[in-house]
């Protein structure tokens, strides 16, 4: 067991623990923050494995953008600030989820461990350097790269389109009684859901 492995194990434990906390915490903000820790330590793992650029992109995109998006979404959807058990689904659902999770872990770990066995690999950091990755991306992977940019564009447009408010027609404001009052949070389900 050399130093690399020790570092790896430490980071792995950190990743696992923070991931677990991220999915089981009762406060939404804590979830987001634990997610940051998790993703950050994953970047560390990538470094250990010699993938420098991947670690960098992970930090930039995941931690920098995705988590921020998540936090923004939490804000916009008025997520509860206080500790709330309402974040979790019912016990039956959670049991099934746990079962699914454990099952998946077991299957994957079983097959992978059986496949990998005791083999070891050498980690070379120059394989993950910016130069080699750049050469690879703009060399062999240029077409998927371009497609990816199209994908990003599509996602951008889609997100815009979805989240635009539906346009109101320019009709004179009729004195008819609307079926429901325009969206007031008062109607709601929120108190109902409290009961659950």
């Amino acid at each position, binding site marked *: 067991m050399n130093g690399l492995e020790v570092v790896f194990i430490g980071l792995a434990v950190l990743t696992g623990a923070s991931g677990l906390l991220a999915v089981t915490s009762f406060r939404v903000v804590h979830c987001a923050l634990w997610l940051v820790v998790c993703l950050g330590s994953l970047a560390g793992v990538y470094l250990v494995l010699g993938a420098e650029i991947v670690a960098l992109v992970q930090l930039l995109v995941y931690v920098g953008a995705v988590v921020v998006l998540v936090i923004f979404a939490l804000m916009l959807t008025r997520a509860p600030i206080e500790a709330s058990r309402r974040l979790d*689904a019912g016990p039956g*659902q959670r049991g*099934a*989820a746990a079962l699914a999770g454990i*099952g998946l872990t*077991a*299957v994957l770990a079983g097959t992978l461990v059986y496949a990998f066995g005791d083999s070891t690999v050498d980690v070379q950091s120059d394989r993950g350097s910016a130069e080699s990755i750049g050469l690879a991306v703009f060399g062999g992977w240029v077409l998927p790269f371009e497609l990816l940019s199209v994908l990003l564009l599509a996602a951008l447009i889609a997100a815009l389109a979805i989240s635009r408010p539906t346009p109101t027609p320019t009709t004179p404001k009729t004195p008819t009684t609307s079926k429901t009052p325009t969206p007031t949070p008062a109607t709601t389900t929120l108190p109902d859901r409290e009961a659950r």
Partner: protein
Amino acid sequence: MIESAALLTIVLPATAAVLGLAMGGRSRPWAGDWAVVGSLSALVAAVVELVQVLRHGPVTSIGFLGRVELGTFSIGLDLRADQLSATVAVAVAVVALCVQVYSTAYLSGPGTPEAPTRYPAYAATVSLFTAAMMLVIHSGDLVLLLIGWEAMGLASYLLVGHHSERASARAAAMKAFLVTRVGDLGVLFAVVVLLAGAQTTSIAQITQAATDGEIGHGTLLASALLLLGGVAGKSAQFPLHTWLPDAMEGPTPVSALIHAATMVAAGVFLVARMLPLYLAVPGALQVAAVIAAISMVGAALAALAQDDLKRLLAYSTISQVAYMLAGVAVTQAGGVEGIGPGIFHLLSHAAFKALLFLAAGCVIHLVGSTMLADMGGLLRTHRALAVLFGIGLAGLAGVPPLGGFWSKEAVLTAADEAAHAGSWVGWVVLLAGLGTSLLTGLYAGRAWSIVALGPPAGSLEAALVGAPDALPAIGDAETEEPHETLAPGADAALHARHAAPGTHHLPAAMMLPLYLLAIPTLTLGVVLINPPALLSGVHVDLVTGVTGAMLSLAGLGWAMSAPRLGAPDIAIALPDGTRALLLDGFRVDAVQQALIVRPVLALARVVKAADWSVIDAYVRAVPITARTGGNLLRRAQTGLATAYAAWLVLGAVVIAIAGVVLA
């Protein structure tokens, strides 16, 4: 010639039945025409057959429906024409013709909405019955005989229940069918036993093999006793006699044809046909004789206390058929001579009983009721009818020199000879026969005295003379326990509109058959002067004849002296309890109800309950299971997207594990 004649006796009435239904379905005159033409032509064919057989001898195998190959057996559905079949065929055809002619008037008009006559169906069924009876008579094979036997049972059921709008008629028809069915099972099993034991069902072969001793004793005894069961059922002998009094629910001409002259005689006919079989195994004949003796005396006693004319005649039929059966049962010699007395009584009974029933039908038509209490004074109001009725009663009682006297005394003589030859059966039959002679005279005289003598019913004289005294006695019997009377019977309902005594004129179609039937009733004895081979065994011993005649006349006189007691009915001399018992036919019905009907119904209820709760439960469980399963599965539809995703992932994990493990 003989072959075609025999065939035609069967085919012509059957055709008349079909055509009568097809063409006469809507039109009464057509239906009537076809019916009468059918029976007339059957009569002609039967007479031709008789003449030919007497001249040329019998034909033992006439192809009819070919052969049926059943593996190792081969059943030939052939007919046979001999003296026995020809004679009985003539008797059947004569009675059928009389009945058809009579019915055109009896069931005239469309009837009332509560009691429609439905004449075309009726006439066709009577023709069908005639064809079936002819088939039984002419059949040369037991299987063919069974076919005709069952067809007769069907026709009887249809005709007894003809007025099916009445619940009592339906019940009576069902009872007749079921009770005779029990007997028919015996015939069926006998056929099976014979097929197994003698490898054939041909009557000629069986009788020959029985005479030669080629059939095993067990087979003989079993088949003989089983056939006897069928005989008891069809001929209404104890203990399967209970259907006959109730079968009087049918129209009176039906009673005349089926339940007096022909079908009930078919059982006796069967024994006569299979006589060699019975002679080879004497135990069966002894059983038959005992049954006959019991039926003879019991039915005659019951007839004494009946308050309904048709039921009286029904019990009388049971008694007389027992005479026939006894006549055959005391046979000691083999061959044709042995059945002489029984068959002779069959023929004379056909004549006088048909005459009696048709005359009774006329009386019912006039009076509008079948109850004896409503009748009286016929001699004054309708002399010709009364005289004919009296002739029939005289034949029944065996008054010399009518045909009935000769036939009855022939039976008693045969019994006497058998008794003196040492057989105990002969003694039983002789004593029972003598006793029944007395009783027959009694009830015949009773019927005459009530119906014909005295003042007309409902008139002032009747009210003064003593009818009221009689009424309480009859009334008591009726109120003691309700039993199936025919009041107001189907006949009564049909003819109630004519209930104005003394004023109605009977149509010629109803009177003519009576005259026709009176002839053989009066003159059948003439045949004995030069009898054919069939009746060569018939002779009357002087002592027996005189004794029998004395007893009958004594009975008649005693019954006709009843008015000195205050009422025309001799039965009031009986104590009330006895009278009620006799009226009820010795409560045999109640016994059957308790022993058989109730257990069967209980078993039926058990089966029904088992079917509902055991077998049907599985069927009913199917939708319940489906519904419950569906409701359970419904719970999985929570609507929560992640719940569905959970199911997905779990499923994928299971498949992955399966794939990994199996790979």
